[in-house]
């Protein structure tokens, strides 16, 4: 069997100490094979966002380990960690996080800029990503002037521009009406199917979760149901 792209082993996460001590994750384990689309489903406060932050290497577990393609992520530090995040992950957030006054293209090429890609190459790849999401004609517009659906497509273009292995989508349709949301979903699953990008969706929308290959349910910091386990 292939090495899973992400392997989570008995991960605990605790915030605070003493009286205010709060255990967000109480021992979570699962593997994600490359190219799978996974939905993490749970109510707010269940620990699903914490889990995503840890998978995206934005936060370190209090105990337990996370392996990225067999490499223990605890060994990744400093610039190596930053490079790994930059090259491997793409992020799609519910609240877009676009720089409002900057142009759409400038927003999209931000990961390339951080990676140190040259100006011409940045523009070429940025435009390619925008074309792919049918936003080519909006490249020069300011991000603030886009509609909600266009904004979310710009965000997906940004997540895509660096050819990531995994896209983390945190409530990607939360701020969109159902028609626009459906289009965004189609784009994300299309990328998953056609490019083999592993898709990791955090949501409490069961319809969206139903479209994923696999659903992992989290409640009170514990993994309560995993569709892959049921199938197996």
């Amino acid at each position, binding site marked *: 069997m292939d090495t899973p792209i992400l392997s989570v082993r008995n991960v605990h996460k605790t915030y605070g100490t003493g009286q205010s001590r709060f255990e967000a994750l109480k021992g979570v384990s699962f593997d994600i094979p490359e190219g799978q689309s996974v939905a993490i489903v749970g109510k707010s406060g269940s620990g699903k*966002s914490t889990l995503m*932050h840890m998978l*995206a290497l*934005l*936060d370190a577990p209090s105990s337990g380990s996370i392996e990225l393609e067999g490499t223990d992520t605890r060994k990744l530090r*400093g*610039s190596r960690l*930053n*490079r*790994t*995040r*930059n*090259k491997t992950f793409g*992020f799609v*957030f*519910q*609240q877009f*996080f676009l*720089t409002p*006054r*900057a142009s759409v293209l400038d927003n999209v090429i*931000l*990961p390339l*800029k*951080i*990676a*140190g890609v040259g100006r011409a190459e940045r523009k070429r790849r940025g435009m390619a990503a925008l074309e792919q999401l049918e936003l080519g004609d909006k490249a020069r517009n300011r991000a603030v002037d886009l509609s909600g659906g266009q904004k979310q497509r710009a965000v997906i273009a940004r997540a895509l521009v660096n050819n990531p292995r995994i896209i983390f989508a945190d409530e990607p349709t939360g701020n969109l009406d159902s028609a626009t949301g459906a289009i965004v979903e189609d784009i994300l699953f299309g990328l998953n199917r056609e490019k083999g990008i592993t898709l990791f969706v955090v949501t409490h929308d069961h319809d969206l979760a139903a479209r994923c290959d696999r659903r992992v349910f989290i409640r009170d910091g514990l993994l309560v149901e995993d569709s892959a386990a049921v199938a197996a």
Partner: protein
Amino acid sequence: MRVPDLVGSAVANTFRAKTRTALTVVAIFVGGFTLTLTSGMGTGINAYIDDTVAGIGASDVMTVTKASESAALAFGGDSGPAEYDPDAIDNGQIGLGTVIALTPDDIDTLANIDGVLDVQATKSISADYIVAGDDTPYVVRVGARVEGQTLQLAAGDAPDDASDAFELVLPVSYVEPLGFVDDADAVGQTVMIAVTDAERTQHLVEATIVGVAEESIASATGASVVLNDALTDGLYATQNIGLPVDVSERHAQASIWFDPDATDEQIAALKDRLADAGYTGTTVADQLGAFTTVIDGIVLVLNAFAVIALLAASFGIVNTLLMSVQERTREIGLMKAMGMGSGKVFGLFSLEATFIGLLGSGIGVILGILTGTAISSVLSDGLLAGLPGLTVIAFDPVSIAVIVLVVMGVAFLAGTLPAARAAKADPVESLRYE
């Protein structure tokens, strides 16, 4: 992120909150503007002094007087009444009272002091008036030129000491009153100088005008006629007719020459040797020292005000950037999530601060130079028209560059606090949206 991209992003970010940036830039501008003007003033006035140094005297010449207790009295000394000294004479300088006369013996003593190359007694001449033809006579001061001194000539040449003819250089202000059309017209004409001898007989001595000199504030000769050696000797001899030789050969001061390559220590040592022998030596640098010290002092005080303005402005930068960091928490978090290192985030924000500093100081320096140039041209045409060659506010590229760099440095320092805060931001914390 590459450095050019980092700089580009910092510049672009600066223009995002235009009003806030503009206000901070104005605050820094005030500091930069003031610093430019004050340092320009220092540069201008000191350059003027430097230009006229040669006019005050040669750098290898020292003026020597005999040390006297009574000289201190003129400054309200507290050593009580000075003992009468039959050798004391008026040194001809207001406020300095009397000095003890230098006799031929003193001149010999000076000549034998180690390091003294040559000694020449300064012959002080008090002329009664100067007149051209049958015109109105005018009161005049007569100054002797020390070799090495340069005159700022408006026309003609400096008086020739080697010549036996009586030659003089006229100050510009005497040209018209004496009835000459212009500076060039005066050159080659003859004037008469009147001196009164010890027997109260007035003599007229004829001399040729060989040049016309500008008057400058720092010139020792001031608005006085400068003579060649032949004319000096002639007038001196005329003035001393009827005086016994031992009186006529008493001089208020003498000039000594020393090695032009002498170091400051060697000059100080020479002064010590003069002091041991009972004389006081003053170099041109000593006389100028007082001038430049006063001007440097004034410039320093003005600069202090500018620095206070800058200090206030730097808190403006801190405030601006702190607000900016606060506002852009999400953006910072996102950049960090995308793999931007803390060092680069710090760099981005401190570059923004430095750029604000560059903007403020750049505008300040440019407007400062324009204003300064305008002010000094107005002043030199009006209030200070009597001081030809003086540019009150002058600029030298080095000090301008230093101002810009210092302001940018201050801005960078002010930016470190917000930048450090941005660099410390936790991406998880910044990306939370509850």
